[in-house]
């Protein structure tokens, strides 16, 4: 017989049904022990009382505080959790933060629901209210077995006490990321999860307008007991086209970078799914393994790796176009290759793991249930197009993403890589010492010249310093004079004079040093170029440190642009320095820009297996290109590609019925042309390089035939414009024609017309070997225009013969024969002269700015 005394705790546990000893033995002893039985009766009474109390009392589901027995207990006085909002009895709080809570609650029928509560620190604005109603409206319309069914939406309270509630079907499941402790995801599971989620995304994207979840992540993917996946938390969901893109919502790491700027499309959720799958596979947060541009190592089959890589491509255009395409890609996994465009490892948004940007970004991702984030600052960061590279392949050609292919057919067919335009040598203009900007003299897009003051720093303290330093200098100078006078009468020692001299030298040095600092407050451009971006504004600090900016502006010489691409190591054999390349943009594919490979990096990107290749664009034909533009680069051979001549109209020919008698044994070509001009009444401009001699006796011949025959004999040709024939080499004239067409195209894109000189008097011209500036000024004087000539139009001579030649045609012909051109300003009748290339370049840059 057990003689141990029965404890009250044992009896308490027994009444609770929680006694873990031998209950039968205990009951047997109770039958014999009156005292213990009386104690059992007390404990049973207490147990009943506790159960009644538990049924009668109201407990806070969050903090377990007892709610006072008021008629309408709205929420817990301790933690603020709701008690029974909208008639839903709260059972527990899943998540709680400053933005609200997620409850598990029961409705009046006892059905469990997920009840989301949105709270506001301040009284909700009309925008907030509209956003809530909009979300409720489209959630109500969703009907999919993998999406919790919408139950109700309502609000309670007023002002700052306003709370909005969304009741949805409660999904009994486990978030995928909550299984890490007990489960390693296999490749088959990942494929299954991807398929299930993509089916949901296909459904969402099939709605009109399309619904974008915007917060796909493992925590929002619940695995039910039967293995099916449910997509939950549509709090961040977005009906395409309904909201402005100024606020970004999502969870950092899972959302693509463009979502930071509020830009979402059909690829957004696909990217997030890819990031989620990578997270499940690697058990590492995506922001740790997904570099800003690429997917880190994932231990899966090449086919799945390729699929994932396409999902998480940084550039939306490189991803699957939508969920349906991704689902098709998944279905074909292992059957067909997934076209992979490995992306270039280039930081975007200036975010770097080692920089402070990531932590800041993370802090900015204030999440409600891990979703809401406001990253307005990030959207203002420059988003440089990412470079990508692909080898030109025939349709259906297998892409092996596991490593470089030993064969490199692309090398023989020409490698095509995508990349982006960059300035050849962009410069970030910074300062040596910390200060604030007092004045900014330039803006984005302004052209600057070397030495130009582009900004001025505050120098008030330096001005004060130099006044003090000058005063000190004057003081010690007077002291020196005094010592010198004293020395003259032997009232001071030599050492005293030397000491005073030293003090003056030190003071002068101080003045000089401060003057240098004051000069340094005037920030000058070190190069000729264009301001790409102003980084700091007046009032902002410009020194490295908290709350300051590291630079003032970025400047680059846009006349020299570079196409930067990453080329796979396997394709590098087909690329060499000095090789030509064609560069096309998305907008201009028909007329490629010419470039030449100038740099091939000595270092390969080990992670990507690529090498940086820089092709310099032809400076004469890079109009319209801007740094950051995405381009396609086709690497060619050593020879430049045949230039596709624009559609140049056939040049006008001079015809004449006149006949000229040419009888000469031997004479200079220039003289012969002059004779034809005079004999046939043909106005003509002859360049000074026409020095050859011809010997012929033709007798009487038609003027036009004679003219063209002699020119052809010297590989020359002419253009007949405005009643005047301009002689030149065939190549030179053809080039001029092409450039004229290009010029017209540029003007057309600028919305301008070709500037014509005003009509005016005609001239009788007979100038042979005449100094060019003087000839031009003479013609301009007749046309009553003011000629602005650059310095370089000093040497050179011109020959022009003709009677009754319009002054404007004469001026244009003379200029053109010297590779010069003009721009006319009607206001003041100014004619500015310059080289054709120089003037066209200005218009190209204007086009860039335009």
């Amino acid at each position, binding site marked *: 017989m057990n003689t141990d005394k029965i404890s009250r705790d044992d009896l308490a546990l027994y009444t609770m049904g929680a006694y873990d000893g031998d209950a039968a033995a205990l009951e047997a002893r109770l039958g014999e022990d009156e005292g213990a039985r009386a104690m059992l*009766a007390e404990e049973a*009474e*207490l147990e009943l*009382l506790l159960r009644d*109390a538990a049924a009668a009392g109201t407990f806070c589901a969050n903090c377990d505080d007892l709610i006072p027995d008021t008629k309408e207990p709205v929420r817990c006085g301790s933690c603020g959790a709701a008690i029974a909002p909208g008639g839903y009895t709260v059972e527990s709080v899943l998540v709680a933060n400053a933005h609200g809570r997620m409850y598990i609650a029961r409705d009046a029928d006892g059905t469990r629901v997920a009840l989301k509560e949105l709270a506001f620190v301040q009284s909700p604005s009309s925008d907030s209210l509209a956003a809530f109603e909009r979300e409720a409206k489209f959630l109500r319309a969703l009907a999919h077995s993998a999406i919790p069914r919408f139950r109700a939406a309502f609000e309670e309270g007023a002002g700052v006490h306003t709370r909005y509630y969304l009741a949805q079907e409660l999904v009994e499941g486990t978030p995928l990321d909550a299984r890490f402790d007990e489960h390693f995801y296999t490749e088959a599971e990942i494929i299954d999860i991807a398929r299930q989620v993509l089916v949901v995304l296909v459904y969402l994207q099939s709605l009109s307008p399309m619904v974008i979840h915007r917060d796909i992540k493992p925590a929002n993917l619940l695995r039910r007991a039967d293995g099916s996946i449910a997509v939950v938390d549509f709090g961040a969901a977005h009906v395409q086209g309904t909201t402005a893109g100024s606020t970004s919502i999502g969870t950092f790491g899972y959302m693509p970078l463009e979502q930071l700027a509020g830009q979402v499309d059909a690829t957004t959720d696909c990217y997030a799914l890819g990031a989620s799958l990578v997270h499940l596979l690697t058990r590492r947060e995506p922001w740790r393994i997904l570099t800003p541009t690429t997917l880190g190592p994932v231990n899966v089959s090449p086919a799945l790796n390729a699929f994932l890589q396409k999902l998480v491509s940084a550039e939306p255009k490189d991803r699957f176009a939508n969920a349906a395409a991704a689902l098709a890609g998944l279905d074909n996994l292992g059957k067909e290759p997934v076209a992979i465009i490995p992306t270039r490892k280039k930081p975007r948004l200036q975010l770097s793991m080692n920089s402070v940007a990531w932590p800041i970004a993370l802090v900015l991702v204030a999440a409600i249930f891990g979703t809401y984030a406001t990253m307005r600052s990030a959207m203002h960061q420059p988003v440089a197009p990412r470079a990508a590279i692909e080898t030109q392949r025939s349709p259906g050609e297998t892409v092996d993403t596991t490593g470089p292919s030993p064969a490199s057919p692309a090398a023989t067919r020409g490698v095509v890589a995508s990349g982006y335009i960059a300035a050849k040598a962009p410069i970030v203009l910074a300062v040596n010492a910390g200060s604030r900007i007092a004045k900014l003299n330039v803006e984005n897009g302004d052209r600057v010249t070397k030495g130009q003051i582009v900004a001025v720093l505050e120098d008030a303290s330096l001005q004060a310093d130099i006044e003090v330093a000058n005063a000190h200098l004057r003081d010690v100078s007077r002291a020196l004079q005094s010592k010198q006078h004293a020395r003259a009468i032997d009232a001071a020692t030599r050492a005293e004079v030397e000491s005073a001299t030293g003090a003056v030298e030190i003071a002068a040095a101080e003045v000089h040093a401060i003057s240098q600092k004051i000069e340094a407050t005037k920030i000058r451009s070190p190069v000729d170029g264009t301001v790409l971006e102003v980084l700091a504004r007046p009032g902002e600090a410009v020194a490295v440190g908290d709350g300051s900016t590291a630079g003032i502006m970025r400047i680059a010489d846009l006349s020299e642009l570079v196409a930067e691409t990453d080329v796979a190591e396997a394709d590098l054999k087909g690329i060499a320095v000095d090789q030509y390349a064609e560069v096309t943009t998305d907008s201009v594919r028909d007329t490629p820009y010419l470039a030449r490979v100038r740099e091939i990096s000595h270092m390969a990107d080990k992670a990507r297996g690529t090498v940086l290749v820089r092709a310099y664009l032809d400076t004469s034909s890079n109009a319209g290109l801007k740094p950051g533009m995405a381009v396609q680069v086709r690497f060619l051979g050593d020879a430049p590609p045949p230039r596709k001549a624009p559609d140049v109209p056939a040049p006008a020919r001079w015809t004449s019925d006149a006949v000229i008698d040419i009888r000469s044994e031997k004479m200079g070509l220039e003289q012969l042309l002059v004779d034809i001009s005079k004999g046939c009444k043909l106005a003509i401009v002859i360049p000074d390089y026409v020095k050859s001699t011809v010997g012929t006796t033709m007798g009487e011949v038609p003027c036009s035939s004679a003219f063209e025959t002699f020119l052809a004999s010297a590989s020359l040709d002419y253009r007949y414009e405005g009643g005047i024939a301009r002689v030149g080499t065939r190549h030179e004239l053809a080039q001029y024609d092409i450039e004229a067409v290009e010029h017209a195209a540029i003007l057309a894109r600028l919305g301008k017309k070709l500037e014509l000189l005003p009509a005016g008097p005609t001239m009788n011209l007979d100038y042979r070997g005449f100094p060019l500036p003087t000839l031009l000024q003479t013609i301009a004087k007749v046309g009553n225009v003011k000629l602005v000539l650059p310095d370089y139009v000093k040497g050179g001579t011109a020959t022009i013969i003709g009677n009754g030649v319009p002054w404007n045609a004469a001026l244009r012909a003379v200029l053109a024969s010297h590779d010069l051109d003009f721009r006319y300003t009607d206001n003041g009748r100014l004619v500015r002269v310059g080289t054709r290339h120089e003037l066209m370049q200005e218009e190209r840059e204007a086009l860039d700015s335009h």
Partner: protein
Amino acid sequence: MTTLQPGVWDDAIRQWDHRVYLSVLALGLPPDRAREIAQTTWTKLMEKHAAGTLRELELPGLAIRQARFLALNDLSRGKTERRVLAAVPDEPTAPDLERQLTSRAEVARVLTALATCSPTARRVFRLVYATAGGTPALAAEEVGLSLQRVRQILCETRAHIRKQLADQEVAP
């Protein structure tokens, strides 16, 4: 009040049997006898329900009253001690107003005492007593404590409440 449809007795017994058993134990009957009475209670209710003499099943109140009635019968036949009989109300089949008021006041005192317990104790209490199907094991899992610790917390909480109730009875 719970209304049951015929054919769902199993669920009712599973849900309320322990409470019925406790109500008999509280009268001082030995456990084996209390269990017999609880079983008899359910049997009688099922027979009455089948006979159509019960218009409405109000559980667990009806079962508790029936059990206490049977227990008092048992006690009145002298099978239990006089001390216990003195504590038995005369009309156990229907709750009188005074009893209800007394019970309500006791519940309020329990809640007052519970409010002075630690947050963990309150949470364990809520999970065990105010949650459907709550047990110490489930509470331990929910709170993240060992089952032994949860059992200990429950015993401490009961002791605290018991003391509070006793102090309130002593106080004027």
